[in-house]
């Protein structure tokens, strides 16, 4: 039932609403009918009441008149009938009756014209003569509508008759004319009837009931409200009730009102449509309006419902498709991952097997180990991507913003990208445009990650011989504290289809194409990139055309780290030669800003010519920057020729995006004083001019990692996994450290406990271990009462690289956290911080 309700609740709601509307309309119709009925009843009651009252009044007049006559008659001393008769004759016109009459003790009626026996009339014999009650006779003696009002009197002998009753003959029209009213458009029918239903008088209207007995004539009529029996009973009891009766093709209100005269009742019949016509009409109009409104509401509801249902269905469909897509992507991802992970794993296992089989063949073993190393790195890369994604999605990734040099980032990118670019014989250009701020606040690692991802993809998806470029531009912003940087990574690769561009930044997606099926990757790179950019408050977009290449644009607003360095030099003359116009232009701008006079040459030959021309003019260039690779004349050749012109004092520097280690000797021979790596910043130019022209020493700040920071240090390595233990021990031993091992926390604690103070400089502690885990062991060590308990450096080593693990490790007293597999350079870098800090602290203590 509940399921049914849940399933069909909308239909049930609509049906319920419809029923409610119908009920309301029906109720309204009934209310209208009832109101009409009550209104009609009230009007008819009032009308009938007034008419009945009027008839009663007139009848009372007749009785009063008879009393007057009787008194006059009694006062006559001689009971002379003729005297009374004459008196009445005189008064006849005044009183409006036709004649005087008497009834004798034998029920004989006498008036001026005739006599008639009323013996067979029980009204006369019983009521008048026996019970001495006044009566009114009708439909007697004539057809002319005569009413005979009779009152009993004391017996009087008149002309030999014993008279017992005195009366007047009255034309009923005088009494009942009031019934001929024109109310209700003249359609009201009024009847005076006796209690048994016999009609005494009918109004002039065209009567629908012509029967002698009005009540009995209704026997075949259809009572819509009330019944004939109830009507009969009401007439007898005097209870008033408006009924409706169908006669012919019309419906009538049927009402009766007791008239306090004899047993008379006033019966009124009016067509319902006449009484309630207007009210009914207006009510019906209202009813139909309500009906229409109700219908419109229902229609509107249905339309809205349909529309919203469609929308909901569409949304549901979209969500379903998205979910399906997500599922599909996830499934696809898992499938890919499965494939991508298995592939290096297979390689590792396979190569290991090959190495084992050819253990005596060093070349074969070396080759296998190289491939195992490559596969291992690929595997780690994949896992790192997944972990990054997981971190970002769970909100656990936090940016480590700090003052950093954009120059370093660029140099790092060059050094990282260069080897693969060269390997694929691709052209790689990095161009800077109006970079005003070189020192900014950002997370170096994450910005590196973004750019490496983008450049890595560019390299990956660009075929051999293609070109890749990175353009970094700074745009002015309203806020001086922010530098708006635009990074554009362009390639001439295969491009991305429009359709795939939509899902480009979605997790677990990678365009399937026969061309790239060979390309490994998690498909998370761009998703991670976008998330990092978003975290940094920037945007990333892509423009691409399949077959032509892609341009990824990252825009970031990075805070400026302090005021830029003041870079002013005297107005020396500088020549910059590069076949890349943008590099030339950029360099010229920087130089001019510094105060130098810069000239640009777009090729080696042009540079030589300009140098010659300058020398000829006696305005020699005081420092010359030459691109290494220029199409017409290589940098070294150009330098050689210029050197011949300018002499030995003028510094000539080579600009190159490539590793120049291979040409150092040749460069020296050609008279080249030094190298500048592309991309060069303003500061790069400035510092090189300072160095080579002004001969002032300037050293780039270096935080060179001391590879031998652990030399001579004693370490305790704790891991329950023998392989891990062995690997870690081996890697650490390369650093020159002395490594002890322990297989669980307790053993580590015992080792530490038994060792002399400061015996161990640091402990590398696995977390998940039997007997005693890493947290407990750390806690136990920190709680020991020995001088080095808190001093000894304890580093966590876990496969879980989540924030909470790191946080927990720190809470437990560990100094840092390293993820497995161990990245020795990163470890050494981190360790060096603690070692130097520890040393400082120890020195201070000393």
């Amino acid at each position, binding site marked *: 039932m509940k399921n049914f309700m849940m399933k069909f609740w909308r239909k049930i709601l609509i049906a319920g609403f419809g029923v409610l509307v119908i009920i309301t309309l029906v109720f309204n119709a009934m209310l209208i009918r009832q109101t009409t009925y009550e209104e009609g009843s009230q009007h008819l009651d009032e009308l009938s009441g007034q008419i009945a009252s009027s008839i009663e009044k007139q009848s009372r007049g007749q009785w009063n008149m008879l009393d007057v006559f009787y008194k006059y008659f009694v006062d006559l001393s001689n009971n002379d009938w003729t005297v009374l008769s004459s008196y009445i004759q005189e008064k006849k016109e005044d009183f409006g009756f036709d004649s005087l009459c008497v009834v004798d*003790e*034998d*029920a*004989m009626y006498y008036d001026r014209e*005739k*006599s*008639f*026996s*009323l*013996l*067979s*009339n*029980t009204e*006369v*014999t*019983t009521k008048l*003569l*026996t019970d001495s009650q006044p009566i009114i006779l*009708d*439909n*007697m*003696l*004539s*057809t002319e509508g005569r009413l005979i009002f009779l009152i009993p009197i004391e017996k009087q002998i008149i002309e030999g008759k014993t008279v017992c009753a005195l009366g007047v003959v009255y034309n009923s029209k005088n009494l009942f004319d009031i019934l001929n009213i024109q109310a209700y458009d003249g359609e009201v029918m009024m009847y005076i009837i*006796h209690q*048994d*239903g*016999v009609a005494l008088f009918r109004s002039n209207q065209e009567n629908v009931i*012509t*029967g*002698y*007995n009005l*009540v*009995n*004539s209704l*026997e*075949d009529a259809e009572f819509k409200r009330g019944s004939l029996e109830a009507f*009969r009973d009401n007439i007898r009891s005097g209870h008033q009730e408006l009924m409706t009766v169908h006669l012919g093709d019309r419906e009538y209100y049927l009402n009766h009102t007791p008239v306090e005269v004899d047993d008379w009742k006033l019966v009124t019949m009016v067509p319902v449509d006449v009484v309630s016509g207007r009210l009914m009409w207006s009510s019906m109009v209202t009813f139909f309006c309500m009906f229409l409104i109700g219908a419109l509401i229902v229609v509107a509801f249905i339309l809205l419902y349909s529309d919203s249902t469609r929308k909901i269905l569409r949304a549901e469909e979209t969500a379903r498709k998205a979910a399906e897509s997500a599922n599909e992507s996830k499934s696809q991802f898992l499938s890919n991952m499965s494939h991508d992970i298995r592939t290096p794993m297979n390689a590792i296992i396979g190569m290991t097997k090959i190495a084992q089989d050819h253990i005596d063949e060093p070349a074969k073993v070396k080759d296998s180990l190289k491939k195992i190393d490559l596969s291992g790195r690929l595997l780690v890369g994949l896992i790192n991507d997944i972990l990054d994604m997981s971190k970002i999605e769970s909100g656990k990734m936090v940016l480590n913003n700090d003052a950093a040099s954009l120059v370093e980032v660029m140099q790092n990118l060059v050094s990282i990208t260069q080897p693969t670019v060269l390997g694929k014989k691709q052209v790689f250009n990095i161009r800077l445009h109006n970079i005003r701020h070189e020192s900014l606040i950002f997370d170096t690692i994450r910005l590196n990650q973004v750019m490496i991802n983008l450049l890595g993809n560019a390299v990956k998806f660009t075929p051999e011989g293609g070109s890749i470029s990175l353009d970094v531009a700074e745009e002015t912003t309203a806020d001086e504290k922010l530098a708006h940087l635009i990074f554009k990574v362009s390639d001439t690769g295969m491009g991305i289809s429009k359709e795939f561009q939509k899902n480009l930044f979605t997790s677990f997606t990678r365009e399937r194409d026969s061309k790239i099926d060979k390309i490994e990757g998690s498909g998370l790179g761009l998703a991670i990139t976008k998330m990092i950019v978003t975290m940094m408050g920037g945007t990333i977009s892509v423009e691409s055309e399949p077959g032509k290449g892609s341009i990824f644009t990252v825009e970031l607003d990075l805070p400026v780290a302090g005021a830029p360095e003041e870079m002013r030099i005297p107005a020396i003359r500088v020549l910059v030669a590069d076949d890349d116009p943008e590099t030339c232009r950029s360099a010229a701008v920087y130089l001019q800003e510094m105060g130098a006079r810069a000239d640009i040459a777009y090729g080696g030959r042009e540079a030589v010519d300009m140098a010659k021309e300058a020398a000829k003019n006696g305005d020699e260039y005081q420092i010359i920057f030459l691109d290494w690779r220029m199409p017409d004349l290589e940098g070294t050749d150009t330098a050689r020729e210029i050197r011949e012109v300018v002499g030995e004092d003028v510094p000539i520097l080579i600009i190159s995006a490539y590793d120049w280690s291979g040409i150092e000797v040749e460069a020296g021979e050609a008279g080249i004083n030094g190298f500048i790596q592309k991309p060069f910043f303003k500061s790069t130019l400035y510092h090189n001019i300072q160095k080579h022209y002004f001969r002032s020493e300037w050293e780039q700040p270096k935080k060179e990692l001391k590879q031998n920071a652990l030399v001579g240090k004693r370490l305790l390595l704790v891991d329950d996994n023998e392989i891990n233990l062995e690997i870690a021990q081996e890697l650490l031993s390369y650093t020159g450290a002395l490594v002890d091992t322990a297989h669980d926390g307790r053993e580590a604690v015992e080792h530490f406990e038994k060792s002399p103070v400061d015996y161990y400089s640091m402990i590398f502690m696995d977390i998940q271990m039997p007997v005693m885990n890493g947290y407990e062991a750390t806690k136990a060590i920190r709680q020991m009462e020995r001088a080095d308990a808190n001093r000894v450096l304890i580093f966590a080593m876990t496969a879980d690289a989540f924030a909470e693990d790191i946080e927990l490790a720190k809470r437990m007293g560990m100094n840092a956290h390293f993820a497995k597999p161990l990245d020795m350079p990163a470890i050494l870098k981190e360790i060096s911080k603690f070692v130097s800090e520890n040393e400082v602290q120890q020195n201070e203590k000393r």
Partner: protein
Amino acid sequence: MKKDNKNFLAVMCMLVVLGTLGGCTAQSSGADEDKLTITVTCNSSLDHFAASVEERFPDIRLVQDCYTGKYRISEYIARVEHNDFGDIIMVKAGHIPKADMSDQLIDLSTQTIPANFNANALQSDEYGHINFIPGPLSFNCNIYNKTLFEENDWAVPQNYDELLALSREIDQTGIRGFRNSYFDSASQSYQIYQYCVFSALDTLTQVEGQNWHNKLMSGEKVSLEPMETAFQDMQHMMDNGAVRVDDMDVTLNANLEAMAKREVAIGSGEIDHIWMLNTSSEDEFCFMPHFSMTDGQGWLLNLGYYFGANKELKQPENEKKLKAVMEILNFIASEEGQELLVEDELGMMPATIGAEIPDDPVLEQIRTQIESGRYIMRPTFDMFSSVLGTEIGAFIRGETDSKAILEKCSLILEQGSPAVQALGEAEDDFSIMETGCLKADALRAATGTDVALIGISETDGYDPVGGIRTKLYKGAVTEDDIIRVSQIQVDTPLMSMSTSVTGEELLALLEYGATSEKEQQNGEVSMFHPFAVAGLKLEYHSEKDEGKRVSDVKMEDGSKLEPDSVYTLSYIKGVFPEGQFSETETGISMTDAFRDYITTEKRVAPDKKRIRRK
């Protein structure tokens, strides 16, 4: 169920009537067959009225289903009890209280018809239902021989005392001054009738008397003391020689005959009687009022006829007939219709409001009473008939007194009337022809003849000699049934005759059929009127010519009717014209023969195979 049975019976009876009508109207034209047949059940013929209806309503054919005799109360009751009446029923005023027909008749108060009459002339129940509308005013009055009065200078009496004085005076001349019939038969007691006349004149002419009678009729327990007055009057009349023991042997007809013969100067009767007297006698007879001993004044006894409509007409399938019947009733309620009924001797003048008293010399002495409404209904005292039927005779003979009689009446009021004794039982309803055959069986059995023949009355008032339009109904057969089936006049039994005829002569009698007195006088028959037979089996062909109307005649035992063989034959006296053949009075009345047959047989059933009709 009972009602259903009644309805079924009614329908069956209607079919029988219509079947009979079909047989009787076999020679009628095709136009007649298209007409709507409306049947009026009446106890005297309405020829003038019927003729006018035919003329006024061309689409209606009014068929009179007349049962002979105005005073056949038992026949009326039998028919009403068995719902055996037509679309319209005509009822004599005095018969209305005998049977409650409120469930069998249409309420006419829903029509405009009652408005044509004075409210006093309409009888209605407490709900104003009206089952009957009145026919013309008809009075029972004293009738006097005006010629004789004028010859003897007898003044027409103006009050009770003058009547008695004149009666005594006339008695001195050898002519009976005042006499009425006091003959008593099993089903109609003129002794009770005359007593009721006294009671009407002496008691119901008074306000107190009316009130008393109303209470008595409504079932209230009342003192019977007001009935004493009528006995006093009767006694007074007896003391004055106006009522005598011998009068109990005088039938109504005998008294009328005596009046015509100047043997009686003053009697009583109705308009048809006076017309009969004025027709049959050279003297002129006129009405004078009855006189009340109580107030001495002249009063008339209101009789007349009433008309009602069968409730079966309310059935949906009878819509057309209902409309036609209402048209006829409207016509009856008109002054013109009433005048036509006056012509049919149903009354003296229209009962409609405003109708004028006809300028007829016979009414001269009662004009005042008519004008002033000095007419009253005669009480019937049906509840006391078992006592009054015998005790009034005893009172006239001086064998009992009024006190003893009224004590017996009081006892009836307390204990109720004694149960009616059944003489036999009818196993099924009989048709008129089957009833005739049963009577023939009774006559044959009583007379011991080979064959018996009985004439059968037909519609529109055709009565062959000895024929009666009556039936025996399923159930108990009482003395009332014996009389109503056997006698035309309740006070006059039919006597039987016997003769011997050859087979050929018998066949000729059957071929000629029954005849009415009028046909016998004319010497020809209007159409073939088949006999009911006993001792024979035969087949009638009513539409064929004489000589071919009867076939397959066999004796009761299945033997052939031999033309030359002699067969004894019994029949009602007068069935065959006097002198047609040698005949012998058997001295056996039809009534006795039928009573004996029923008493002997106990159970009788209609013989449906005896007569076949084609």
